[in-house]
């Protein structure tokens, strides 16, 4: 004797005739109603996705391109160097012993004001100066400002050398170990001690 569960679980009853026809008709209706909507939706979403991808690609190229152009314009723009307080234009020459400060904006020579290009894209500005052997050396605008403004006497290179010698002396005399992070702190601390010592 089969248990109640087995008996009822496997029990079979033939459904009324015509059931399949009703189901088939219902399936036809479902297919005719659903398929066109699905196709339209698919095309719509695919178009939307394609447009989004195209927009992103163009944006990436556009910003990269404009960024490069701006950077180039910074480096290749007219060079201005300070000569005893007078500003005049000239070209990069390793032998003239002068620091060239690039002009990023024709109307405004203030470097700090030019941190962003017209498009608002952040640019890393570097200034090319003549090194000791005449070779071009890139320095940041902050260091350039420091060198130019540290002493108006000509030539600034001497000022630079004396400044470096002064810093070297400070570092030699100091117990602290200089690193790139604390270098200027040590210099400032030593200067402050010198000023405040009676």
């Amino acid at each position: 004797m089969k248990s109640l569960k087995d008996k009822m679980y496997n029990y079979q009853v033939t459904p009324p005739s015509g059931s399949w026809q009703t189901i088939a008709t219902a399936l036809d209706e479902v297919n005719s109603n659903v398929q066109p909507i699905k196709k339209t939706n698919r095309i719509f979403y695919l178009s939307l996705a394609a447009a989004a991808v195209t927009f992103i690609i163009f944006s990436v190229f556009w910003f990269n391109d404009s960024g490069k152009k701006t950077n180039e314009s910074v480096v290749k723009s007219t060079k201005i160097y300070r000569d005893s307080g007078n500003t005049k234009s000239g070209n990069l020459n390793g032998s003239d012993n002068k620091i060239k400060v690039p002009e990023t904006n024709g109307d405004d020579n203030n470097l700090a004001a030019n941190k962003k290009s017209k498009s608002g894209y952040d640019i890393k500005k570097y200034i090319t100066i003549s090194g000791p052997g005449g070779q071009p050396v890139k320095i940041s605008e902050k260091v350039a400002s420091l060198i130019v403004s540290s002493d108006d006497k000509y030539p600034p290179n001497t000022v630079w050398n004396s400044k470096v010698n002064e810093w070297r002396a400070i570092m030699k005399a100091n117990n602290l170990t200089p690193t790139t992070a604390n270098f200027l702190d040590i210099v400032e601390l030593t200067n402050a001690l010198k000023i405040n010592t009676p």
Partner: protein
Amino acid sequence: MNLKSNHTINEYDLIQGSINGDRQIQELLYHRFSPKMYAVCLRYSGNADDAHDLLQEGFIKVFKNLVKFRGDGSFEGWIRRIFVNTSIEHFRKKVNMYAVTETQEVTIEDKELNVLDNLAEKDIIAMIHQLSPGYRAVFNLHVIEGYSHKEIADMLGINEGTSKSQLARAKAVLRKMVENRLNITSNTKEI
């Protein structure tokens, strides 16, 4: 081709053909599983008309969702689950089961239903039809399908205690029906 007697096509082809919208294959699938599923519908519904509606709704769901069948379990089990869920949806739309307190549960004696083993399936279905919808649903889910009381509670939106007490009451009612039936039979024999 005699579709109703054709059982040579394998399950995979039956599924793929139905997904592709082949109406003949879909009909084959229907004829292969409809007798068992119609029995499921009869057990859960109160009458043959409701069972017929459930059968149609269930098969439409099967064909619409066939693409989601991953082949993890048996195909018949998957179809059966759709029919059980469809039946439960109907039940939940129509019936609000009342909560049974714990004191009521304790007083209900839960005996086995061995008396039903001797009856024919058709007679058992007729008795199940006489149960209230709540008793019927819990009895089918627990005794026939093998769901736990916790699963039944989740499916029907009731608590576990209610499921247990509904089952005990359903069994008591069925036992009473069988006893009455046996008494009637013995009385008839004596006459």
